[in-house]
């Protein structure tokens, strides 16, 4: 059990939790996301909605409706006149708030009502941790004609191991909706990297995990919503709509890390590339299949090997 003195450093002027919600022209999803925050059994939060260059009118309309909920909670809106990157939007939202902890709640995701209560309890129990991450449901949903329908849900694979530095270095292992971070990280390791159009959360997580470790709470309290391919494109997730961009940025980051000095004799970039290959058995299996095919058909095999070499070189470039 924690003694009362161990809670002292959590006291602050602002809310205990700042929830940053980036949004762009998705009022129905935004309304759902706000309600997901308002439903929290833990009440000491401030929600900052960062309207990332979108039309202010629909956002204001949604917020006006949301403010008629009981309890309403502290909801603030930051309209950006021009669209900036996702991570820059997060940084602007964080800069506009004060808190002990923060969460990045994307406008298309949702929480179980107990998410903040459990995550804050987790933080209190592990004051030196950088973040608490809960279990996740992935909800595949269809968005069409202003209506959202879940198609199916699945248990998102996550484990304590996947929340360590080595567990995360190969891949982004969890979406932001599942995490509650210590605010102190921003001064210790810096903000989100605003130069990254995607995977900024992964890059941040890899810095954060070295500043205290992540605590895993297996209870599935976060809902990661992704739209099915037949949904309207404007509703899509960065991961489902921009998968090529994710590959490209992962390559860029790995290249950046290759140039960084080794830590304890290990290069972050090399470790990331090796771990990514090991974490993606399908990729390895695909390579093996191509090698086997090459044994049967040397010309086809040579072409496949050449393509793989070209791919690896392009990622290292």
């Amino acid at each position: 059990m924690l003694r009362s003195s161990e809670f002292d450093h959590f006291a602050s002027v602002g809310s205990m939790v700042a929830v940053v919600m980036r949004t762009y022209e998705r009022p129905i999803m935004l309304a759902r996301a706000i309600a997901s925050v308002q439903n929290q059994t833990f009440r000491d939060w401030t929600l900052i909605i960062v309207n990332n260059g979108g039309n202010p009118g629909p956002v204001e309309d949604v917020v006006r409706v949301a403010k008629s909920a009981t309890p309403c909670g502290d909801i603030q809106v930051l309209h950006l006149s021009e669209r900036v990157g996702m991570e820059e939007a997060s940084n602007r939202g964080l800069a506009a708030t004060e808190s002990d902890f923060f969460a990045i709640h994307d406008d298309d995701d949702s929480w179980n009502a107990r998410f903040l209560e459990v995550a804050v309890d987790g933080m209190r129990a592990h004051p030196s941790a950088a973040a608490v991450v809960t279990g996740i449901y992935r909800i595949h949903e269809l968005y069409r004609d202003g209506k959202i329908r879940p198609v199916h849900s699945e248990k998102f694979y996550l484990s304590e191991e996947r929340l360590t530095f080595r567990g995360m270095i190969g891949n982004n292992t969890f979406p932001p909706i599942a995490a509650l971070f210590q605010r102190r990280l921003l001064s210790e390791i810096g903000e989100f990297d605003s130069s990254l159009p995607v995977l900024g959360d992964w890059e941040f997580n890899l810095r954060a995990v070295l500043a205290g470790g992540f605590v895993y709470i297996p209870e599935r309290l976060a809902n990661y919503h992704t739209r099915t391919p037949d949904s309207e494109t404007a509703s899509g997730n960065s991961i489902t709509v921009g998968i090529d961009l994710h590959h490209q940025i992962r390559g860029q980051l790995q290249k950046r890390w290759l140039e960084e000095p080794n830590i304890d004799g290990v290069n972050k970039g090399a470790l990331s590339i090796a771990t990514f290959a090991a974490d993606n058995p399908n990729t390895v299996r695909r390579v093996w299949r191509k090698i086997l095919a090459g044994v049967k058909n040397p010309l086809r095999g040579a072409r496949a090997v050449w393509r793989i070499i070209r791919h690896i070189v392009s990622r290292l470039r």
Partner: protein
Amino acid sequence: MSRSAPQVLEMHSSATVLTIDFFDTLVSRSVAQPTHVFAVMEEELCRRFGHRWTGFALQRVVAEQIARRKAAITDTNRDVTFDEICSELCELMDLSRDDHHLIADLEKKTEVSLAVAVKFGCDIVSLAREKSMPVLIVSDNYMSAQHIVNMAHAVGLSWVTASDVIVSSEHGAMKHNGTLWDVVLRHLDVSPSLILHVGDDAKADGDVPASRGIATHVNDRMRRSHRHMMNTTPAVLPFSRLEAEYRDSVSSGEWDAAEMFGALVGMIVAGQIVDVRNVLAQREIAGIHFVARDGFLAHSVWSNLRASGVQLPEASYFSFSRSVVWRAGIHVVDELTMARFIGDDEEMTVPRLERRLGCSLDSTIDRTVTISAVTARQILVANSKNILVASATLRERMLSYLQAQGLLEPGHHVVVDLGWTGSSIADLAHIVSEATNGQSVIEGRLTGLYWDAWSQRARVSLHGFAMDDFHTIDDNRRLLGILNLLEVMVTAPHGSVVGYSDSENGVAPIYVDTQVEKEAFEQLVARVSAIGARVATAIVTDSPDSPVKSSDITGETVWAAMMQVGHTPRPEEIAVSGLLRHISAIDHEGAGTALLGDAPTRPKKVNDTFVHDVFNTLMHGHWLQGTLRHWNQKPESAEVVSDIEKRFPFTQPQWVGQ
């Protein structure tokens, strides 16, 4: 018809020794089923030690199952021991040795604290002792004889000592397989024909001892409150206590299914009232409005509470329905806006179409001819002028009615409804906002919401008290499966509103009373409503007679009550539901659909399409779980249930921890 204790002893007058089962025959617990004892423990553990004990109750059941399986491997005759169960639990929950002692001690204490005497069992023991018959307690249980003595003493059976108890865990034998009966016969050393055994298990207390020549009497009345053993969590306890109270009050009488439906309705209504009180504690309110037919009962209870002196503000009940709010909100008539008025698979005549839209329609089609949905929509589009005029008139009357109810007063209004998507309330909010230039703001407080509410949240603020769209997809589906049951049970004595007309006192709703709904109300629903009102009143006033207090009413506990009845109904509840039909047509016409669907003929080769079609029919037209449990009672339809449960695992009876 159950026999009384004197009748049973008289029937077996040659018996000189009475043996009696303990749990649910002589002593029971003040919860509906044995596994709910663990929910009481979980509540206590979480209160004392926090979240790490969440899920304890279910894990405790699982641990016992594992321990029993392991015990059966080494010796099929012996019962599992309490220590073995606790050890398995420690393994499952990663508990320490100290925790082991803690839970073992707590379980014993909890059992004793919850012990209640069973009238029939105590009567027969008392009579036997008056006749100087030796009485021996024979129990299949993992606890010790001393624990049984402690529980007996807790309910006033002070004569019981450890030598009066033979319990399976201390003899390496069980009643179920007969070995404990051999121990009993050796212990008593009398002819089996001189023994009368009384218990609640048809096999262990009936067939098995009877095969050894022992006279038996089985009374399983205390088991009538049992539902699915795995559904145990602290949230289930308030409803469990209501069930246990009723079980004890009718221990020798017939089980009335209306009582448990009434208890459920009572918890829902109490939830609606508690939720409004929560809002009142947090903000200034311009008006409280219980709406639609499912708000009638809550409004009655609210009004009666005020009349009896409870400090509550005035609240209105106003009638509106999906159809009138849709019709009153028509601004454009085209294929898209008219689609919601006619289901794709509907067929109807032009006169019915006129009643549905509330205006006359010009058409060359014979008025007696049935037309398709496509043709019907084309007729509507061709009659856009008539429809818009009718809509404007209806809107004007509706607004007059709403004004009389106070809904157009500037400020924050709380509108209380049962559920389920919030679309009608969003439409209502839009009409009201337009009419008041945004001065009157509506907040929807609903008992249950499912995922269709996601799209409404941009239009109106919605709160789901017992269940909302952020619960798991499976819980969303479970709610969908019970909508028809709840709409039939939580309703008003009048029919649905189809319009508003001028009356002496201003504008009044026009109701359509269907024969089907009238009959349902007379046969069952009126009684359920009366019981529901009584239960809700007792809860929200914290009556000392009520086993549930207002502080017990939370979203989780109301949801648990909805699941206990709606998802794991008892046979008596299914039987009475066979009488009921649900009217779902937008114009409230027709005979509706039966709550319990007819079982389909199962093809020899079952494919996915068959299972999907059956499932969709049940989800959209019937009470899903009531129908599945009904089908499960017959071998020919039980296979279809199995097909559905395999394809849609959420339909399986376990709803806790899934």
